[in-house]
């Protein structure tokens, strides 16, 4: 491999950190997808059915009776706080974020191996993640206080993580083009 086929700046760390955060984001978003699929409108909790808290189950799970009842309440709270557009929006957004997270993982692989052709993919994918974080933040902002409390702070953290990665990738790209 000649020098032109390798990154001069050697941003292995950016690749490793990018892949790590991509994996964490993938886990987070697939779980969000699962959440939206499982906690569906019209399910038992929303219909006001009483929690089934058998003593043997409580002992097995190490739960109090109150905790068992509150588990149903927490589902009711989520359903009651979600505007009708929120669930389909979250499902679509999570799928999109998973796709871009996979692309950023590929970019991270390329950066670790000093492949110049992956820098652009890194800049694009990290920037797209920043935009998707903004979209998710805006959506959460337009729900009620319960979902805002649940979503806004983690989204702000992800936003800054992706902003750092996007700026670092942009910096690598600029230094490479100057070199």
């Amino acid at each position, binding site marked *: 491999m000649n020098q032109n086929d390798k990154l001069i700046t050697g941003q292995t760390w950016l690749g*490793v950190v990018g892949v790590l955060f991509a994996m964490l984001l993938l886990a987070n978003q697939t779980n969000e997808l699962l959440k939206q699929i499982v906690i569906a409108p019209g399910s038992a909790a929303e219909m006001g*059915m009483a929690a089934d808290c058998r003593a043997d189950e409580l002992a097995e799970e190490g739960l109090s009776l109150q905790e068992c009842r509150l588990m149903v309440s927490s589902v009711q709270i989520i359903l009651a706080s979600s505007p009708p557009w929120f669930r389909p929006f979250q499902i679509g957004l999570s799928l999109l974020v998973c796709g871009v997270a996979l692309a950023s993982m590929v970019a991270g692989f390329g950066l*670790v191996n000093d492949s110049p052709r992956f820098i652009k993919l890194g800049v694009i994918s990290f920037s797209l993640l920043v935009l998707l974080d903004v979209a998710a933040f805006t959506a959460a902002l337009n729900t009620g206080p319960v979902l805002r409390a649940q979503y806004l702070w983690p989204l702000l953290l992800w936003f800054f993580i992706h902003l750092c990665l996007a700026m670092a990738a942009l910096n690598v790209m600029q230094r490479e083009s100057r070199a």
Partner: protein
Amino acid sequence: MEQERLPKITVILHWVLASSVFFLFVSSWWMLSLPLPSAEFTYRVLPFQLHKNIGITLLLIAVTMAAIRIAKGSNGHPKNPDRLQKLAALDHLIMYFLLAACCLSGYLSSSYSGWETSFWWILNLPAWAQENDDLNILFSGLHLWSCWALLAVIVLHIGAAIYHGIADDGLINKMFRL
């Protein structure tokens, strides 16, 4: 530093395994907050079935990776490893052990709970154990603690990967190259 290449399948399995482990952790913390199961409250059915399916698949992946490692030998590893290299080898060994312990104890706990396991909704695994609350609680505890220990070892593993990534010493490149 140019390193020897790992088989493509090893690299792919490593990343599938890593991503799945993170998903299992985050989803298990969430799914245990769902209402306890009953005829009406079925919120736990999909997450638990998915959890078991991924866990069993992970065990198969870990066994495959270990088999590849044994078959290929320890090419590229130093003949006289220093203290850190010995620790890294031990970390890998413990990680494989804990991953297997975590998956097996989870499967055993599920078996003794009386819940059926349908492997990816295709194959119904035989219910080879009778429902037994004591054994369910025992294996559930083992599952919990082996998974916490696994998380601790994974943190060490990732910490070392970040260290070598920042040092840019070429040590981790083989796991990022297809």
